[in-house]
C-alpha cells in the first residue's frame, strides 16, 4: 500500500431511477460498514481504491434527486475530477438521457474530467438479454467516439462495480490531484478567547 493518498471529487449523473445510488452503495458498503442510510441525509460518501503507485480517495456526490427536473446546481459539477453517468440497459430513453448528461457535464465541468458511461444491469443475468434495449456495442462506440470509459455493471451481484472505480482511479491524473481543502473551513471563535483589535 502506497502512502500517497490522492483526493478526488466524483459525481453521479443520469436520469431518475436508473440505479445511481445502488451503484455507489454497493461500492462503498463492500468495504465500509459504519455509514448511515445513504439515500437520506448523506452529504456525500467516501471510499478508497488502492493502486500500485497511490491510494485514491473518492468523495462521491449523489444527485439527491435534483436531477429529476434537471435542477442540479453548478456547485454539483464544480471541481469534479470524475463523473459516472448511469443508464439502465433496459431503458433506451435513459441512454438518450445519459448522452445529454455527457453534454451537460462537458459544458459545466472542468475540461479534463474523467467520464465513465455505465450501463446498469438490474435483475438477473438469465432474463437480462431478452429485456435489453440498449446494445452494448452501440454504447461502446459512442463512448469511444467521446473518449470516455464504458462498462456495464450490476449492483445487485456486484459485477464490475469495484472494477469500474479502479478503472476510473487509474485514469485520474494523480499529478493534478486536488488538495483536500484549498480555502479554510469556517469555524466560530469561542467567546473566551476573543481578542478585540
Amino acid at each position, binding site marked *: 500500500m502506497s502512502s500517497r493518498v490522492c483526493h478526488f471529487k466524483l459525481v453521479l449523473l443520469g*436520469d*431518475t*431511477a*436508473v440505479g445511481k445510488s445502488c451503484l455507489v452503495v454497493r461500492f462503498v458498503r463492500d468495504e465500509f460498514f459504519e455509514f448511515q442510510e445513504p439515500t*437520506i*441525509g*448523506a*452529504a*456525500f460518501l*467516501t471510499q478508497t481504491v488502492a493502486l500500485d503507485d497511490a491510494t485514491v480517495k473518492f*468523495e462521491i456526490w*449523489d444527485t*439527491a*434527486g*435534483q436531477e*429529476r*427536473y*434537471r*435542477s442540479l*446546481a*453548478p*456547485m*454539483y459539477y*464544480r471541481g469534479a475530477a470524475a463523473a459516472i453517468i448511469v*443508464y*439502465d440497459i433496459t*431503458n433506451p*430513453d*435513459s441512454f*438518450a*438521457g445519459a448522452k445529454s448528461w455527457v453534454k451537460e457535464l462537458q459544458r*459545466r465541468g472542468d475540461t479534463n474530467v474523467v467520464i465513465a458511461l455505465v450501463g446498469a444491469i438490474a435483475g438477473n443475468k438469465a432474463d437480462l438479454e431478452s429485456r435489453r434495449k440498449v446494445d452494448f456495442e452501440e454504447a461502446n462506440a459512442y463512448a469511444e467516439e467521446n473518449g470516455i470509459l464504458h462498462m456495464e455493471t450490476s449492483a445487485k451481484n456486484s459485477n464490475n462495480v469495484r472494477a469500474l472505480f479502479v478503472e476510473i482511479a487509474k485514469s485520474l491524473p494523480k499529478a493534478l490531484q486536488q488538495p483536500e*481543502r*484549498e*480555502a*479554510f*473551513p*469556517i*469555524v*466560530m*471563535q*469561542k467567546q473566551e478567547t*476573543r*481578542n*478585540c*483589535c
Partner: protein
Amino acid sequence: MSEEEEKKTFDWLPEGMEPLADGEYDAIIMGTGLKECVISGLLSVQGMRVLQMDRNNYYGADCASLNLTNLYKKFNAGTPPETLGANRDFNVDLIPKLIMACGNLTKMLLHTKVTRYLEFKSIEGSYVYKAGKILKVPATPEEALRSPLMGLFEKRRFRSFLLFVDQYDETKPETFQGKDLTVMTMRQLYESFGLVPDTHEFISHAMCLQLNDVHLGQPALATVKELQTYCYSLSRYGTSPYIYPVYGLGGLPEGFSRLCAIHGGTFMLNRDVDEIIYNDKGEAIGVKSGNEMARAKFIVGDPSYFPKEKVRATGQIVRCICFLNHPIPNCGDLESVQIIIPGPQVNRKNDIFVCSIASAHNVSAKGIYIAIVSTKMEGNEADKEVIPGLALLGHIMQRFTMVATTYEPVSDGNDDKCYISSSFDASSHFEGDVEDLLSLYKRVTGKDLDMNINADSVEADY
C-alpha cells in the same frame, strides 16, 4: 426524463389538471433565493415534504451569481464579448454582500453544516472614504496608532473605547463601567470617551456598518454588539472581518438547496408559478403552474411571487456591476476589498458601498475585476447617486446598472398561510437579512431557531 412517471391522481385535483411533481407537500417554496433555500433546507431536515420552484433556470433568485450568458441576458446587453474570457469563469453576484466571519450567517452555515459544500476565503482589505481619500480601516491597535484617520490624542481615546467594547458583556454588570447601554445612546457613549464626530462616523459606518446616522440617537447596546462582531470577525481571519464563498454568493443558496434535497426535497427550476390557490378562508392551499397543480399546508416565497396587495415597497436600491481590468486604485493593489463611503462624506444620508472581487475568489476570468457600487436611493436619478463610488474605480470596461425596489410582507402570514420574505437590504453584509430569515422561520414554524453553535461540534465529517 427516462422514466414514464406514474401520474398519481388526487380527489382535490380539478378536471383537466395534472399533479405538479408529487402533488402533495407540506410546504411549497417559491424562489431559490438564500432565505427561501435556508427555510426549505431547515424544513426538510425536520422531515417536512418540500417542493421548491424558481422561474429562472438558475439558483439564487435576486442573490444569484450569474455566468456571462445569464448576466448579459438579464440586462439585455447582447452577447458577451469574447475578450472577457470563458463563460463559466464568471460568477457575478447580483447583490453585493460580504459575510461577517463571526456573524449570524456563519452561525447558520455551521448549524446546518452547509459549510461542507462550500469553501471560503477572506476578503483582503477593508477601507473607508474620508475627505477625498481612501484609508485603511485599522485592523490592529498598532495600525490604529499609525492611521491618518485620527489625531494622536484621539487615537488614545479610540483605543480606550475599543478596550471598553471588547470587555463589555451584557450579562456581567462589572464590565459596564457605570454605563447602562440599554439607556445611553450611541452618541452619548462616544462622547463619554471624548471621541469627536469624525471618529463617530468612521466607527459607526466602517466598523459597526450602520447605513445612516439613526443609531446615534438610539440605545448604544445594539451598535456596540455590532462592533464586537466586527472585532471578533477581524481577529479571526486577519486583514478584514469578511469572508466570501469561492465561486460567488450564489453558492450559499445552492448549498442549502442540496441540504434540502438530501433530505427529500423536490426542486424545479425554470418553472414559474402562475397562480396561488386559496381556500374559502383565504388561506393558501397550493399553486398552479401551467396545467399542473400541487397542494401544501403553507407557501413560502420571496415578494416577487405574491400579488401586490400582500407586500409593500420599502425603498429602492441602486446597484452598479462594473467590469474592470485593474484592481481598484489606491487600495494597495488588493484584488478583494470593500470601501465604505459614509453618507455624510458626500452629502448623503445613506452610505455608498464599493466592493471588488476577482479571480482569486473564482468570480471572474484572470485579469478581470468585478466591482459593485451600491446604495439606497435618495432621489430618482440612479446614475447620480452612485457617482462618488464610480469615481473611485478608475477606468470601467463595462457597467450594468439596476434599480431594485425592496418589499416587505404586509402581514405575518399566519392568516393567509403565505409566508413572505423581505427583499435583501442595502447593507454590505447579511446580518440584517439573517434577522429577517430568523423572523420568517419563526413565523413559519412557531419556534425560534437554535443558533447556539459550539465551535467544538464542527467536526470534519465529510
